[in-house]
């Protein structure tokens, strides 16, 4: 080989949470798998089967990302918090994260990291959650004893056991059987509103309460055992968004697939409105989005051609991972690179780069072409840092430049193909050539927007159609619709599916 196969694992700083694949950022996260994550089923409270199902799908989508990163295990979709906690105990987990249907843990890995950090500093804690003191806000819980919002709970299972495994009570109204609850003190500091105190702790005495909130009994039990409960801090809150699927449900259903609809402005809940607007914006810019750099690791999968040089490389038109795969497996002067993408702008970018760039100072080239392409905001305006990281991972500037020189002389073909909806077009191309053939599909099948727009059942069907067409001699890189490595699935029988929604 002209060049040693040098791919250096990233110490990277990239964070692009739009993909579900093992992210370059993962390299920075090293946590033990001590957390079980369960989804709390609140379908009863959601007046739309569409919204109920899709919120479950999307909550799982983000949980799945954490699972793929090896940070947690999935516990299931249950109507009772205590059932999920018991499942976590049965799996020998130390902690349980309860994500309510509609909670989007788009920075879930960071939330797990922060929660484990909290656990380390507060080893005897019982639960971290949204402490709600809605005395004045919500008419149904007006005057209620404080509670914990069911959207998110992080529970220390050892303490839960020690307290006798109390169930997580739902809100209640009482006339003849008003509970007697421990008196409490709320912090004067609040997290973001006057109903979200930073902590709650015990004061002397008990009082009778006619209205209770979700989790009031947990607060009562904790206080009686002299435990303080802390609210999530703002960093933790920034890791997730809750869609409140039981608010404006009919409107949410209307805009789920029609994000530009003016009804979005009528959504009364700000979290809901903000998220849909973000999705609408994301969808719009993804139409001609160009990925100069990859969001996934360059070398995680290793060499797969078993010593044979690549003759034909079929690749998504994204970043420099194609070069990394070519370099890791080896290629020759007659190798053909076949780029495919549903986005024509990505293909045009690749053509332009190959024709006009000399392999030096990519940051300068990107700056000069900044207005020509819709580059991802992850690195836009910060090209130098990302380019340096890229060179580093390829073994330095010289190694990259030599690789680029060899690569740009190869024959390149470009095809506009949507591999999810017209996979046969891709396989027609693959089957029309001979030799050692490699395919890299990146995270196309497991991307956030695809999963927002298409139900996992439909995606699975489309994936299986795709999988059926994969020829035996095709070497595989990329992920299936639930972010399982394609090679593991197709060649090694890791046939996983997604959890099914049930009400």
């Amino acid at each position: 080989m002209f060049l040693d196969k040098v791919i250096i694992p990233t110490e990277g700083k990239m964070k692009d949470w739009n993909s579900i694949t093992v992210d370059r950022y993962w390299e920075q996260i090293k946590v033990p798998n001590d957390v079980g994550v369960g989804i709390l089923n609140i379908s009863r409270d959601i007046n739309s089967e569409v919204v109920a199902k899709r919120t479950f799908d999307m909550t799982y989508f983000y949980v799945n990302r954490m699972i793929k990163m090896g940070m947690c295990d999935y516990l299931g979709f249950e109507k009772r918090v205590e059932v999920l906690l018991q499942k976590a105990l049965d799996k020998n987990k130390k902690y349980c994260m309860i994500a309510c249907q509609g909670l989007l843990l788009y920075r879930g890995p960071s939330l797990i990291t922060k929660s484990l950090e909290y656990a380390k500093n507060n080893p005897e804690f019982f639960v971290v959650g949204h402490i709600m003191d809605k005395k004045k806000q919500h008419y149904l819980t007006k005057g209620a004893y404080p509670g914990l919002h069911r959207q998110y709970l992080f529970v220390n299972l050892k303490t839960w056991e020690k307290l006798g495994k109390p169930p997580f009570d739902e809100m209640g109204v009482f006339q003849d059987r008003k509970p007697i609850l421990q008196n409490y003190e709320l912090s004067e500091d609040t997290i973001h509103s006057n109903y979200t105190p930073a902590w709650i702790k015990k004061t002397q005495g008990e009082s009778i309460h006619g209205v209770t909130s979700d989790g009031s009994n947990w607060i009562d039990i904790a206080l009686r055992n002299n435990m303080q409960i802390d609210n999530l801090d703002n960093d933790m809150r920034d890791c997730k968004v809750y869609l409140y699927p039981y608010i404006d449900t009919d409107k949410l259903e209307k805009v789920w697939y029609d994000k530009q609809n003016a009804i979005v402005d009528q959504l009364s809940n700000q979290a809901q409105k903000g998220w849909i607007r973000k999705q609408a914006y994301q969808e719009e810019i993804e139409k001609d989005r160009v990925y100069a750099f990859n969001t996934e690791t360059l070398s995680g999968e290793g060499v797969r051609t078993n010593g044979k040089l690549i003759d034909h490389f079929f690749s998504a038109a994204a970043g420099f991972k194609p070069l990394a795969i070519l370099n890791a497996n080896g290629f020759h002067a007659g190798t053909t690179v076949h780029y495919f993408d549903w986005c024509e702008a990505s293909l045009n970018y690749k053509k332009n780069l190959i024709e006009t760039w000399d392999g030096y100072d990519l940051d300068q080239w990107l700056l000069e072409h900044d207005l020509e392409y819709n580059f991802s905001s992850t690195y836009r305006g910060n090209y130098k840092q990302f380019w340096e990281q890229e060179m580093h991972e390829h073994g330095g500037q010289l190694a990259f430049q030599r690789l680029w020189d060899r690569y740009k002389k190869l024959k390149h073909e470009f095809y506009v193909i949507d591999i999810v909806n017209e996979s046969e077009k891709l396989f027609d191309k693959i089957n029309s050539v001979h030799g050692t053939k490699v395919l890299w599909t990146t995270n196309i099948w497991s991307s956030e927007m695809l999963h927002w727009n298409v139900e996992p059942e439909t995606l699975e069907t489309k994936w299986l159609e795709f999988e059926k067409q994969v020829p035996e001699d095709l070497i595989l890189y990329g992920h299936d619709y639930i972010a399982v490595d394609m090679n593991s699935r197709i060649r090694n029988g890791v046939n996983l599916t997604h959890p099914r929604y049930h009400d």
Partner: protein
Amino acid sequence: MEQLEKYWKEHDKEYKFQYPEQFDPKWIVMESGWPFFRLSALDNQPWKEMHKEAEALIDKFHVHRDEYGEGWRSLTLHGLNEDTQTLNSYGDRAETIKQLDWTWVADECPVTKKFLTDVWPAEFLNRVRFMLLEPGGYILPHQDRSDEEKRLSVCNISLNNPQGCEFVMKDQGRVPFDDNGSAFLMDISNVHSVWNRSNTPRIHMIIHYELGRRIRDFFYVLRQSYYTNRG
């Protein structure tokens, strides 16, 4: 009879509901002013089997409020005993509440008991009774709660409701109980009267309850019913 004839002439009409666009459980229960509300979500319950269970005990029923009723009898499934009166009549209400339990009647009526434990969306039961109105029987116009307690509260379930037997609320109209079984939340601060002008005993079940921590289950039933009723 003349009193009933006059009352029927004045108040026996169909009640017209005006449904708001958005479902709001508190509004329905506390503010709507609706005299009754059908819990359509419970329409598929085994009312006929429950009726058979109650009918089998027909000779066990106790005369009820004969000061303003004729042929009106009751049998308690959940309470202090098989003939439990209004709970406030036993002194300290809190103590009375603690003593509430299933009676032997519930043991004889497993389908009914299962409905009350597994389906009925409230955490606690207070007094639950079968209410019998014999053929030709009647309950004169009366008011169970004061005007200040105007809201939908107790649940009245028709296990049967033969043609000719009617439940009429003053100024509001007829409650459209179904002979095949139907459950209604009732605002019993309205003056109401029942008259069974059929040849068949009418058996209803009245549930007094406390929602407790099952308020969301109750709202679910209310919401499903609301959209069904609204059409």
